């Protein structure tokens, strides 16, 4: 039962008025001095008490009338669903057991399992229960079953994961299970430590109507935990053998500062240890001495001593050789002075990533010049033909990028072999400068969804509209090419097309200041670097993954360097095996090119001829965000979940009744009001009788 206007309940305070009238005021206002109470005190005590409680029935009637009035105005109503405990018939329950690694804190996991077993034990014969565990994702361990032993065995089998907490998938799973249930009463028992980070207000839930959510909170108060949340590495120079300085960031969720010894291992060798004091509810950084690491991929581990939550006391990472992105710029035989200077300097100025730019004249090109190149820039030269061109196209197919800047190159000079790959027609050169003080064309539209321009999406982060273009090549887009940027006359400025594993991009104006003032604009440098990263399919090396991430080889092809040759889409994938820390094997196939990383530790990618232990290590750590043990009120979670459900259903939480049913459920207030008037009538009769008695 609930109340539509619960504030009226405050009116019960008014009961104090008759109490004061009957018991307090009367005594205080009428004081009768009497010579002696000697005889009055000899009257049996019970008689005296009765005098004090005189008109008790009258008093009770007045109080009852008041209570009935208050209850009527509070508008009580009965929810459509029967309560779980009171309802008869079968009941279906879904027990959601939090297995995120934060449940490893202290004895939370044991308490959670005990609570889940207790929730099973509370069921009656004929009831159904489903055991589901959740961390980042949720999974049902059993089908809806009435056999308690099966459910308890599932709980016994449940183990802690290395993932974080997300309540939305778990509640969604429970909702899906209960949505198809025919049981008259259904509920969800959520057993968790209720970390605040596990719930997002944006989560969309579709809990079925009339499903209750009961929470079992196994969290502790005053939690304290030291965690290694991240690691950063810094190489002294670009040399592969340069010493590496490792820094680790530690966090403390406790209410008191704590000093810990932090140690570093690289390649299985202890590098050093340092003592760091982590402030209360804060973080600190531990910096280790610089160490020289092997040229190959090296495993690194940062540790802190064990505490209540061990899972986040170890942080694993890999150190890969710092290889620069190789870029080849091909210039025409009669190149302008400094034709590729701006482009080259823009790439070479940064180190994340580092670009290594080589410049060749087109007449000196050989097929070997394309080997190992991430990006080939054809700066106002036609794509090469013959054997050289074939080599470039192979590299393009294998994942290299080609940036074609046609400039004033005649369209008819482009070799026919490139035509099906480019799908871009080269029209005339458009002059946009004139004697009337015209300042040139503008780059009017850019696609911020493209990785090339996404860095400029935020306001004030780059203004392409200020670029003046004096000349540009009119591009005609054919087929499936994508236009990433356009001039103000609608002519494409940057066109992209995927070719095999590589990308082919065409830029409509020059890379130097001869056709536009782009090189003198602030956006030039980040734009060129983003263009080179995207065209060269560069992806940041991942020193570590987080448990729950998916290892997608199509996105992290660099992990296969040195193991197997890359395979283009549609081509058979070489036999690659991923061994988990617990030595579970996952075999990649043409249909399975992504594997979820669920364990914390070092995975190992092995090629066909790779021995165990010599493969490419992949570090996986627990989700550092899970180390934030901030607690949320379970009622808040339930309210939010049911509110989301109610909003989705367009009704009150858990209420799918019709207006007639609602009216029926709320009609009790009429009875209460009628009862109040009846009680008042009885009170009037009684008080009149008592008055008559006293007068008599």
């Amino acid at each position: 039962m609930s109340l539509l206007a619960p504030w009226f309940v405050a009116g019960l305070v008014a009961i104090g008025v008759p109490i004061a009238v009957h018991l307090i005021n009367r005594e205080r206002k009428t004081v009768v001095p009497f010579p002696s109470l000697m005889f009055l005190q000899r009257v049996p005590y019970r008689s005296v008490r009765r005098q004090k409680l005189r008109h008790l029935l009258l008093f009770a009637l007045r109080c009852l009338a008041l209570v009935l009035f208050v209850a009527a105005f509070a508008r009580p109503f009965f929810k459509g669903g029967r309560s779980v405990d009171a309802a008869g018939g079968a009941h279906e329950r879904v027990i959601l057991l939090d297995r995120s690694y934060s449940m490893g804190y202290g004895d939370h996991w044991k308490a959670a399992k005990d609570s889940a077993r207790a929730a099973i034990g509370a069921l009656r014969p004929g009831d159904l229960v489903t055991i589901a565990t959740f961390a980042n994702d949720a999974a049902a361990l059993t089908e809806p079953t009435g056999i308690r032993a099966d459910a308890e065995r599932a709980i016994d089998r449940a183990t802690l994961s290395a993932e974080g907490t997300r309540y939305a998938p778990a509640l969604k799973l429970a909702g899906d299970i209960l949505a198809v249930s025919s049981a008259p009463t259904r509920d969800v028992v959520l057993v968790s430590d209720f970390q605040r980070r596990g719930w997002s207000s944006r989560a969309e839930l579709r809990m079925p109507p009339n499903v209750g959510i009961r929470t079992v909170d196994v969290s502790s108060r005053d939690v304290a935990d030291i965690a290694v949340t991240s690691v950063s590495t810094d190489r002294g120079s670009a040399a592969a053998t340069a010493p590496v300085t490792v820094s680790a960031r530690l966090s403390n969720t406790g209410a008191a500062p704590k000093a810990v010894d932090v140690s570093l291992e690289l390649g299985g060798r202890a590098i050093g240890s340092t003592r760091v004091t982590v402030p209360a509810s804060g973080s600190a950084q531990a910096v280790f001495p610089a160490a020289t690491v092997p040229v190959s991929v090296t495993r690194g581990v940062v540790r802190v001593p064990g505490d209540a939550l061990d899972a986040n006391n170890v942080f694993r990472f890999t150190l890969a050789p710092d290889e620069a992105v190789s870029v080849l710029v091909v210039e025409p035989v009669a190149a302008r002075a400094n034709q590729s200077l701006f482009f080259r300097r823009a790439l070479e100025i940064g180190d994340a990533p580092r670009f290594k730019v080589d410049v060749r004249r087109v007449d000196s090109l050989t097929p070997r010049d394309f080997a190992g190149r991430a990006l080939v820039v054809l700066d106002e030269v036609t794509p090469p033909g013959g054997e050289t061109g074939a080599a470039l196209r192979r590299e393009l197919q294998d994942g290299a990028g080609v940036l074609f800047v046609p400039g004033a190159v005649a369209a008819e000079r482009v070799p026919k072999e490139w035509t099906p790959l480019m799908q871009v027609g080269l029209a005339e050169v458009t002059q946009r400068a004139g004697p009337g003080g015209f300042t040139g064309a503008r780059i009017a539209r850019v696609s911020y969804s493209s990785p090339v321009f996404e860095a400029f999406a935020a306001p004030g982060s780059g203004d392409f509209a200020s670029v003046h273009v004096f000349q540009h090549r009119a591009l005609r887009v054919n087929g499936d090419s994508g236009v990433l940027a356009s001039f103000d006359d609608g002519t494409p400025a940057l066109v992209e097309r995927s070719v095999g594993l590589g990308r082919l991009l065409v830029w409509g104006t020059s890379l130097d200041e001869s056709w536009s003032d782009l090189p003198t604009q602030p956006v030039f440098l980040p734009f060129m670097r983003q263009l080179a990263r995207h065209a060269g399919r560069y992806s940041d090396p991942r020193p570590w993954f987080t448990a729950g991430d998916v290892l997608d080889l199509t996105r992290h092809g660099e992990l296969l360097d040195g193991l197997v040759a890359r395979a283009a889409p549609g081509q058979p994938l070489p036999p690659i095996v991923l061994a988990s820390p617990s030595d579970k094997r996952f075999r990649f196939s043409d249909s399975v090119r992504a594997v979820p990383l669920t364990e914390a530790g070092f995975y190992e990618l092995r090629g066909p001829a790779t021995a165990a232990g010599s493969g490419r290590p992949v570090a996986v750590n627990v989700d550092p965000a899970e180390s934030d043990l901030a607690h949320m009120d379970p009622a808040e979670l339930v309210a939010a979940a049911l509110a989301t459900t109610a909003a989705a259903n367009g009704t009150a939480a858990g209420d799918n009744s019709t207006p007639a049913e609602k009216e029926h459920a709320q009609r009790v207030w009429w009875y209460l009001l009628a009862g109040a008037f009846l009680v008042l009538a009885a009170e009037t009769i009684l008080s009149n009788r008592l008055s008559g008695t006293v007068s008599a």
Partner: protein
Amino acid sequence: MTPHAIVPGTEFLDPAILSRIGNLEFVAKVVVEGFISGLHRSPHLGSSTDFAEHRPYMPGDDIRRIDWRLFARTDRFYVKEFEAETNTNFLVILDVSPSMRYKGTSETGSRVSKLEYACFLTAALAYFSSGQRDRVGLATFDKDIVDYIPPSARHLQQVLYALDRAYRAGATRGPGEQPPAEVTREASGRTPDPDAPLDQQATGRTMLLEPLRKLSDAVRRRSIVLLISDLYQDPRVVFDAVDHLRGRGNDLICFHVLDRDEIEFPFTEAGSFIDVETGARMPLVPSYLRTQYKALVQEHTEQLQRLARERKVDYARFDTSQPIAGALFAYLGARERFTRVR
């Protein structure tokens, strides 16, 4: 003895009328003279007689008491015996405790307090006795003796003066007013235990035993002792105290003075009843208690009567709303008996 009905011709002895007279001596005079004039038509009392009987002369008798006329007729010596020897001591012991200052608050209650009523009565009796050449004295007490004027033929004015003080002290504290601070202080802090013996409950109220014990030491000559009190104590305790005086050969008269409210308990409104002597409070609904209260008062009175009878003490209860003639009748009747048996 129950309160007497108003005797015709004695209506002016109504306490409400007497209370309008400020001079207590004048009140006494009015009462006594009016009372005596009323007696002319009274069939109950005759004047006292001097001669009682003759007895044979015994050696040592005063020869002046020989009846020579009888000797002339009988030639034998007889001595005259007189029934009443006047000049007896008359001591009034008056309770002036706070409870005696009670004046009815209900519609049926008396218009004078018990103390005022007792003062009128004492003054009248003292005036009357003095007229009989008795030696009159007065002792007032509450928890102890407050004032003591030993019986003397010349102490009437002092007695009336002491009564006047007590009367004015009672008159200045009206009904409903709090008891004296010292009494309240003593009573505050604890509520009497209803299950405790009554003599223990009496802590903080009038204590008869000690004042009467002291008075018994002070009264060296046999006297007629009149105790006027509301007797809010266990009857056994009352008469244990009275026994001290009786043991000295004194003749005791006990006037139990109560207001109509104390007898009828006519209150209707529920409220907190405060014991004016102890300060104890009791929330009560009188209509539910009235029957039991009256039964207890009646039982108390009957027990007092029974004990008085056993100890040969004259006992009478008076309602202060009634004229004081009844009290005078009671006194004179008792005095007559006492003088007869001497």
